[in-house]
């Protein structure tokens, strides 16, 4: 990552604490407590406990959820039900934080601090505010916001999620077999009819085109695999999609763009779900 040394060091520290979070999360010590018992994160907002405590817990829950979404089994497909439930939890938290107004507070405080997740999420925020009209804050997990889904697809986040969900780079020269029409609508119908065709086909030659297209639906899993592969510097087969994609996002002239985009993809794709 192209950061200066100071930030690089901080990043390294963040990594350790991030890793610690992972360790404890996956520790077999079932008896360790989270904030259960006295702290009443499950309590209603009506019975407002001390505000910082609740916000802190909520933020921790958000961080934990993001980590859960990012981690996936390298060799086996992730459990879709679990992923959907975690993603819904993230959305819930984000919506509440937006209503609270605490979302903006977090943004302001969020310049290069705390966990790796927040570092990335602030990146997303920075990018989105650059692209958006000034003053309009787009939540980083904008894919979830219902309002967002109505905004025009010129929005950069939308573009990112759209393009990667299509799995087709806008580069027409690409020989990628996933390439399809760019129109979101057509893509949807095309996919749906493909699914139905797929359903009624008999045993297929694994090399058939239908088989390849049948995997378009599973882009969610593919990108998990891809991105994990990316993080481990191994090619998992679908990397060319994202690579060609990231090579075209020229809209942001920020020097950290390329590496940030990969991180961005990572987060947005996990959250927004391709």
């Amino acid at each position, binding site marked *: 990552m192209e950061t200066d040394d100071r930030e690089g060091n901080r990043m390294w520290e963040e990594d350790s604490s991030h890793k610690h979070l992972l360790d404890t999360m996956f520790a077999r010590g079932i008896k360790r407590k989270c904030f259960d018992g006295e702290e009443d994160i499950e309590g209603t907002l009506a019975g407002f406990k001390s505000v910082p405590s609740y916000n802190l817990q909520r933020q921790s829950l958000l961080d934990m959820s993001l980590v859960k979404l990012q981690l996936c089994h390298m060799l086996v497909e992730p459990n879709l039900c679990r992923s959907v439930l975690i993603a819904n939890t993230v959305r819930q938290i984000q919506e509440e934080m937006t209503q609270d107004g605490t979302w903006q507070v977090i943004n302001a405080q969020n310049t290069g601090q705390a966990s790796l997740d927040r570092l990335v999420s602030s990146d997303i925020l920075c990018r989105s505010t650059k692209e958006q009209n000034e003053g309009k804050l787009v939540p980083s997990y904008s894919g979830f916001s219902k309002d967002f889904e109505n905004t025009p697809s010129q929005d950069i986040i939308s573009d990112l999620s759209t393009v990667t969900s299509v799995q087709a780079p806008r580069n027409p020269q690409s020989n990628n077999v996933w390439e399809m029409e760019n129109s979101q609508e057509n893509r949807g119908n095309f996919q749906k009819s493909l699914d139905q065709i*797929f359903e009624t086909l008999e045993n297929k030659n694994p090399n058939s085109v239908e088989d390849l297209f049948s995997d378009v*639906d*599973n882009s969610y899993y593919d990108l998990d695999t891809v991105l994990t592969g990316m993080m481990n510097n191994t090619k998992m087969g679908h990397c060319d999609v994202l690579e060609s994609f990231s090579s075209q996002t020229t809209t942001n002239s920020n020097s950290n763009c390329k590496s940030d985009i990969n991180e961005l993809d990572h987060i947005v794709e996990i959250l927004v779900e391709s």
Partner: protein
Amino acid sequence: MPEGDTGWKRAFEADIISTVEFNYSGDLLATGDKGGRVVIFQKEQENKSRLHSRGEYNVYSTFQSHEPEFDYLKSLEIEEKINKIRWLPQQNAAHFLLSTNDKTIKLWKISERDKRAEGYNLKDEDGRLRDPFRITALRVPILKPMDLMVEASPRRIFANAHTYHINSISVNSDHETYLSADDLRINLWHLEITDRSFNIVDIKPVNMEELTEVITAAEFHPHQCNVFVYSSSKGTIRLCDMRSSALCDRHSKFFEEPEDPSSRSFFSEIISSISDVKFSHSGRYMMTRDYLSVKVWDLNMETRPVETYQVHEYLRSKLCSLYENDCIFDKFECCWSGSDSALMTGSYNNFFRMFDRSMRRDVTLEASRESSKPRAILKPRKVCTGGKRKKDEISVDSLDFNKKILHTAWHPLDNIIAVAATNNLYIFQDKAN
């Protein structure tokens, strides 16, 4: 074959039981495990001359149902773990069952052979062909008894119809068709036809970004062959009638209990996700299992369940920890007793719970070698939720969340239950039997 941790993990976990199912008569009990094996137990014929004799279950057949596969296109493994087994009603001497992993359903025929023919004309006892010119006399082959041999052979393989992971299969009361359900779709099959299935439910959104709900379980009605239900991760159940339309995306009935606003939390949705749905034998009710409770629904009332039973309410204050260690995503199954008068479901610490509907009583029992010797009566267990812990009680913090009972089965006629505790199978019988 992928290397690294996987091989080691597989050896360790292969024996973990992943499904348990009695057949229609209760004489056979099938288990599937994480290693793709199916083990079938058969109830011994009871010997009436021995006082304390009761039918014990002994191993009848073992076979490898599914093998691990590798999806080269996605660079992902397809687990061989058996997710569900469902028996077909017996129509002849052989037994048939359906077993499924994440992607492929197989129909297995289990048949016995206890005789063999001797005295062939054209071949001798070793099986070698005899020279026809040497045969001077003809004889009729005789059937002679031999040691019982149980053979399992795959008769049908239903593959390539599920993009997502199969969570349920259910045989129809017409005995000709069955359904298979994955996270987003439900398919209808004919048992004779493997190259074609009909998609009857599809909840996959056009735009996957909008996915917020998945199918968690599905089952056919026990008597009405056109009716089935499926449950979702949002705690809803939809009843569908296949006569109304080919694609049952529109439900006939929609069952959902309104949320209690006072207990709302960030985990509300997760704990409302239904992990299992089962029709009663009578077909009048259905039971659903969510993380903390079991609910009985009257099919004629969609607004709320008619009965609710708390399985382990003491976990409600621990939801955050359980979210952290992923236990909150555990999928517990549930089952009815043969007469529908009782319900059973599993919990943690190798505990399982039974609820007597008519007497409004419930009991917590433990399935473990330490706490129960063969033929000993199970002692009820109690979890202490706070304050002073009484003798024999166990405190919530001492519960072992690695010992989870996800799969249980109840004999269709008698009070015999099968409880799968990780890689051990326990069979308990009512002493009054």
